[in-house]
């Protein structure tokens, strides 16, 4: 981007901003909140939810901030009676076709629709009517779809196509019956990266492994790095009662919040019953539980023994590409300084 700047006004306040930005970007840059449902980082504007409607002096109609480029001298209003009225109208319509089951919904607490309903205090819907039926998804172990909660913002479809380049799901049918699904309603057959789950604002797409494990406010979140491949994706682990119940990723990272099936769904091994619980010493072919003391003394003794009998270079160590820098440093320090040999390597090449 060239450093050019333009001047325009938002709610009467003059501001300057860069070129080729959408009104929504500019407004948010200036700390003003506009509700949105179909807007999603890195995806092309869609303009379907109609919540980001704003007034622009000289244009009689309300226009969507997400899809309109801000231009020099624009006079933008983000709040007015008309705007407020239409936003409430949209939310009321959405709720008229939405199950009122927030108490069971996985998304409760992180659902922008729930927040809007709360802010607008929409207890009773003036025009109730037909609701779309629940069509629950196939038997894949990762992703659950409930179309009755779907608001058709298209974020899942767009992220699957625009970012993941897979296009496993799409819009089906049209009008009130429009829904998201797979061709001929086959079983979902994709990379199971879960980008769709992460981008779904409501409870229409949820992660099966996290089902009923805990509410967002019941969890503690810890930022760390994915233990799998070398991409170094940033993970946010959501922990409840010392268990990882779900994994997300912050959009403001090198992986832009995107993960693969391993990063998003692959952390449960940490809680696997096979985890080693205590040191083991092999006695005539059988592993016997031992204390740290016993185990370490034994190892130290054996290493010293071999060192003395066969020399330093008869000992060797294999370090780990899955351990931390600190641990790898310490390991080679141990091999070199304590065992006195350079016989240290790891499986970088494998």
């Amino acid at each position, binding site marked *: 981007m060239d450093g050019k700047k333009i001047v325009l006004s938002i709610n009467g306040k003059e501001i300057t901003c860069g070129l080729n930005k959408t009104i929504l970007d500019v407004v948010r840059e200036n700390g003003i909140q506009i509700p949105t449902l179909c807007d999603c980082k890195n995806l092309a504007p869609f303009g379907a939810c109609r919540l980001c409607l704003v007034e622009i002096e000289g244009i009689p109609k309300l226009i969507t901030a997400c899809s309109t480029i801000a231009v020099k001298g624009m006079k933008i209003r983000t709040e007015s009676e008309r705007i407020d009225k239409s936003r409430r109208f949209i939310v009321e319509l959405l709720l008229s076709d939405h199950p009122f089951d927030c108490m069971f919904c996985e998304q409760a607490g992180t659902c922008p629709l729930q927040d809007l309903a709360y802010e607008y205090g929409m207890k009773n819907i003036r025009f109730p009517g037909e609701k779309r039926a629940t069509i629950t998804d196939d038997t894949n*172990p*990762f992703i659950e779809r409930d179309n009755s909660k779907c608001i058709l913002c298209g974020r899942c479809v767009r992220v699957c196509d*625009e*970012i*993941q*380049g897979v296009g496993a799901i799409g819009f089906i049918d049209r009008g009130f019956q429009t829904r998201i699904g797979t061709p001929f309603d086959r079983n979902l057959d994709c990379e*199971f990266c879960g980008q769709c789950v992460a981008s779904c604002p409501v409870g229409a797409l949820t992660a099966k*492994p996290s089902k009923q494990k805990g509410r967002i406010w019941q969890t503690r979140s*810890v930022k760390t*790095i994915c*233990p799998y*491949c*070398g*991409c*170094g994706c*940033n993970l946010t682990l959501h*922990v409840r009662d010392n*268990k*990882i119940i779900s994994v997300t990723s912050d959009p403001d990272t*090198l992986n832009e919040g*995107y*993960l*693969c099936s*391993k990063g998003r769904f*692959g952390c449960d*091994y940490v809680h696997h019953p096979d*985890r*080693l*619980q*205590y*040191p*083991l*010493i092999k006695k005539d072919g059988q592993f016997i539980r031992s204390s740290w003391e016993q*185990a*370490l003394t034994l*190892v*130290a003794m054996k290493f010293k023994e*071999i060192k003395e009998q066969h020399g330093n270079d008869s000992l060797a*160590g*294999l*370090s*780990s*590409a*899955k*351990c*931390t*820098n*600190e641990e790898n*440093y*310490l390991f*080679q320090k*141990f091999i*070199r300084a304590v065992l*006195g*040999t*350079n016989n240290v390597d*790891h*499986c*970088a090449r*494998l």
Partner: protein
Amino acid sequence: MAGLATAFGSGAMTNSIAEIAGAETILVIGSNTTEAHPIVGLQVKKAVKKHGAKLIVADPRPIDLTRLADIWLPLKPGTNVALLNGMMKVIIEEGLEDQRFIAERTEGYEEFKKVIDALDLEETAQITGVSVSLIREAARMYAQAEKASILYAMGITQHSSGTGHVLSTANLAMLTGNVGKESAGVNPLRGQSNVQGACDMGCLPNVLPGYQKVSDAGVLSKFENKWNVPLSNKPGLTVTEMFHGALTGEVKGLYVMGENPMLSDPDLNKVKKALESLEFLVVQDIFLTETAKMADVVLPAVSFAEKEGTVTNTERRVQKMNKALESTGEGKEDWKIIKDLAGAMGYAMHYPAAENIFRELSGLTPIYNGITYERIDPHGIQWPCPSVHHPGTKYLHHRRFSKGLGKFSPVEYTPPAEIVDDEYPFILTTGRILFHFHTGSMSRRVFSLNEISPEGFLEMSAKDADYLGIESNEEVVVKSRRGKLKVKALVKKNFLAGTVFLPFHFHESPANILTNTALDPVAKIPELKVCAVKIEKIKK
């Protein structure tokens, strides 16, 4: 890795992951990026779908990326050098090389050029199985781009001539001046969360942390002072040499931390023998892996979620891992175990926390000098970072290669150590799949991942399957000179005939029971990507 170090002076990715999206042409060679490095894969997709970049995929298999590719070069396994040399031949013939860059920034061009000039493209086509016209098209597409980026992985390195393959990628980049600038370079993709870090930290037989040679007296004394012990200046053994040593009796005791050679290393039967012939084996891990089962002592470590520390990703970014869980058993952080063991052996280590270790290592490691825990929160820093005021390095070799001038190396094509014959008529190549990781010790223990991908498979062409009368999902026996295994066949329409593929994650069908230990003489990397096998139908 050794290859890039020779050419550029550093073995790491020259660019950042995010820069890939900015490339005009991307050459993916020997990397199934979207499966082995999915997030790097996204950047390639972004480059192509959003910015209209050109994509060349050189791979024996019709990998996912070929869908997006402008050109797919279905080369025979192990013929990367021939292909790359062929492309460079075209580039020089058509005067598409970057003379200025060659003149100002490189050395050894003339000797290198001799090899290329001697080439005959028809022969190249013969060797690689890729038509001359395709090679030409690819060469032009790569050379004519302002910014061209090469991505490669084990498909390049895991050959008995792997170093040569790597040098060839470096040659191609230098020939066209596609290195040392944003979005253009040579990018080896690292397979595991901290391969880069393990190398940076000197878990290599010939170098200390920061790639400082053990043979360098000055370096050695620096570490001797800091650690106050005398150190050996004799380069040690590599993994495969260690196992060999074990068999010859030269190696008696082995300490394995978080590794599973019993699945990851070539010729598993040989590995097994080697481990059995050891006098003493200590394995430190979070699961009782195939390797741990063979240990005399097993030390319980803890998982990534239960420890704090730093890891360095494939783009040289040092990032912070934080502790999320308390260990449920007696397992301890690996560094604490090492510390205690050192203590038990009479060498006291004083580290109240991981951060203390980091302070020590960054002090001894020039490329890490400027990195601190404070500075890497939240976005990490890319080495080299020589001082606390240095922002880190997005891409390497800007204006000047780490080793001064970039070095062209004449590389001639040498065939794989094991070639097909009447008895073993198929080339087996191995690799990773999307839903599993390395030896599966982690991913195989994830319910959902194991549910979606519960078993190994043998990818083969419809042509070969018809010939052998094999159907998809039929169980077959795969044999090599070193071993055999049973696995289901997966017949693929546009798969290269004469080649078969096995993922190595599955202990039920361990690909590496078949693979060859033939080593690259320089990098000591075994030839996991090419060996000769036969496929037998199971008689009912």
